[in-house]
């Protein structure tokens, strides 16, 4: 099986967010970009499928600027991906999920008959747009919120579950397919030191931005413009309820929620 994983470098969870000088976007200065969240699930799922299906390979792709994109691709190689493609974008461009999907679709190239895995939403802007957009571009079905993918060899069928409103949906599909992964494992594997060292020297295919522009033509521009990046006023700490008894605490809280916060039905 041909397995493709698309990953996006995102700021690590503990990052202190700051707007840049234009106040339109995150200031990337000093931010550590990593493979994170649902993308980690996508990589883990790809590797599990590879291990259980003889003759499959995992190719990881990412569209992004230097140096973070190459770093994240090397991290994915260290985890066990077989090959990596970096679709380069100029660092002053702020692409969106649809442009990302167009660029990755270009790099996948040709009629696609395998499986694409990505996160169900990215760890920064959380659009959840990429999987559907890529599916439409590749002209293959797509779905998000997936967990627990299994490949049933004799019939050539993929089974998976979707964690959606109200429950778990069972889905069966043939390939090709694009899947957005919901978190499925709390502990995706970590790379072993020798593999990390090896990944530093791994060959990474690079597609220059000019080549992508040549293929995409007028579509090589983002469809959205970021205008503002605002931080909410800092939370000032909880109003602590002083009480005589648990019943008193409960009565006070309910009254505050009703009368002050106005959230209580």
């Amino acid at each position, binding site marked *: 099986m041909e397995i493709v994983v698309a990953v996006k470098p995102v*700021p690590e*969870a503990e990052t202190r*967010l700051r707007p840049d000088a234009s106040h*339109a976007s995150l200031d990337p200065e000093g931010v550590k970009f990593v493979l994170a*969240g649902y993308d980690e699930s996508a990589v883990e799922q790809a590797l599990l499928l590879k291990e259980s299906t003889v003759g499959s390979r995992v190719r990881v792709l990412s569209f992004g600027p230097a140096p973070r994109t190459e770093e994240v691709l090397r991290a994915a190689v260290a985890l066990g991906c077989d090959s990596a493609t970096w679709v380069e974008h100029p660092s002053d461009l702020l692409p969106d999920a*649809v442009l990302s999907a167009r660029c990755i679709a270009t790099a996948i190239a040709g009629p696609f008959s395998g499986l694409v895995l990505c996160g169900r939403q990215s760890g*920064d*802007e*959380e*659009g959840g*747009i990429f*999987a*559907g957009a*890529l*599916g*439409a571009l590749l002209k293959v*079905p*797509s*779905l*998000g*919120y997936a967990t627990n993918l299994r490949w049933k060899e004799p019939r050539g069928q993929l089974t998976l579950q*979707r964690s*959606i*409103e*109200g429950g*778990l*949906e*069972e*889905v*069966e*599909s043939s390939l090709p*397919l694009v899947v*957005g992964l919901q978190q499925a494992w*709390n502990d995706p594997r970590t790379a072993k030191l020798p593999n990390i060292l090896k990944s530093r020297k791994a060959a990474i295919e690079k597609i220059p931005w000019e080549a992508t522009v040549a293929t995409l033509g007028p579509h090589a521009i983002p*469809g*959205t*413009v*970021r*205008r*503002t*990046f*605002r*931080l*909410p006023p800092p939370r000032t*700490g*909880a*109003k*602590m*309820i002083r*009480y005589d008894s*648990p019943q008193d*605490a*409960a*009565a006070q*809280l*309910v009254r505050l929620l*009703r009368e002050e*916060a106005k*959230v*209580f039905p």
Partner: protein
Amino acid sequence: MVVVAELRDGRLVEPVREAIGVARSIGGAGATVIGVYVGPPASEGVGEFSRAGLDRVVAVEGEPFARTTSSARARTVAELLRELAPRVVLLAGTSEGRDLAGRLAVEWEAGVATNVTAVEPLAPGPIQLTRPIFGGRATQGLELPGERAVLALRPHTFPPAAASADAAPVERRAPTLPQVPVGAPTMTGFTASATGRGPDLAEASIVVSGGRGVKTPENFAIVEALAESLGAAVGASRAVTDAGWRPSSLQVGQTGKSVSPQLYIAIGISGAIQHLVGMVSSRVIVAINSDAQAPIFKVADYGIAGDLFQLVPALTAEVRRVRGR
């Protein structure tokens, strides 16, 4: 403007009413709001949709749609959009709606934004909107410059449209495209989640979550009883799901679900950053924790320092009392 319907168990889901409300408010008095339904035959649900405040409804019903996922319906929706030629399509920000958004953006060649929490009234020029990013730790102002836009709204953010007394006219069409394209994913089953009785975690307007402080899987029933009294969804910290006390589908946080309800109640949860990123954008946060120094109190609006085993049952009783049941 077009609003795409979503039914669950044959009933219109609430976020669709919110989308109709947004269409009305951004379109102004003269705007026409057309409802589009593509799915399995559902006369009751479509009837409900037609009374939800729309001017007109176009319904494409076909039995095979029952087993497909949104990507199969996207082609039919896009075909209708090419004909109806709206400026904006509004989707409920459910999993179905969000899955549809990216697909429609390409098939209908439109700008797209999801998780939208505010939209400026339509005017000539780009559409201006606001959306939370980084799990609600920041807010993004976004502009969609194109002629067409697909917007998926964050549930529970906008007031629902008032239902209309008269039903809008419904035009029924036969499907023209294959409803189940060759090789398309098909649904083979559905298991209601353990909390299937209550609202879904990602959509609920109140979430009650328990953490390691609850100490045993049996004790977790204390958290669930409070949730039930409030009509809330149940969540959990990773300490709880890792220990297997409750399924991982309940996990809130960086590697679980992001929630932003009107009210989030954290019980016996310390407030690790990986938990906070999944819930800090909730409108009002309440924390109950025996450690008055627990970091959760820094992000909470109201805190009670004390023993959850005494406080939570008292709170459940108080909620039942004031709600009269």
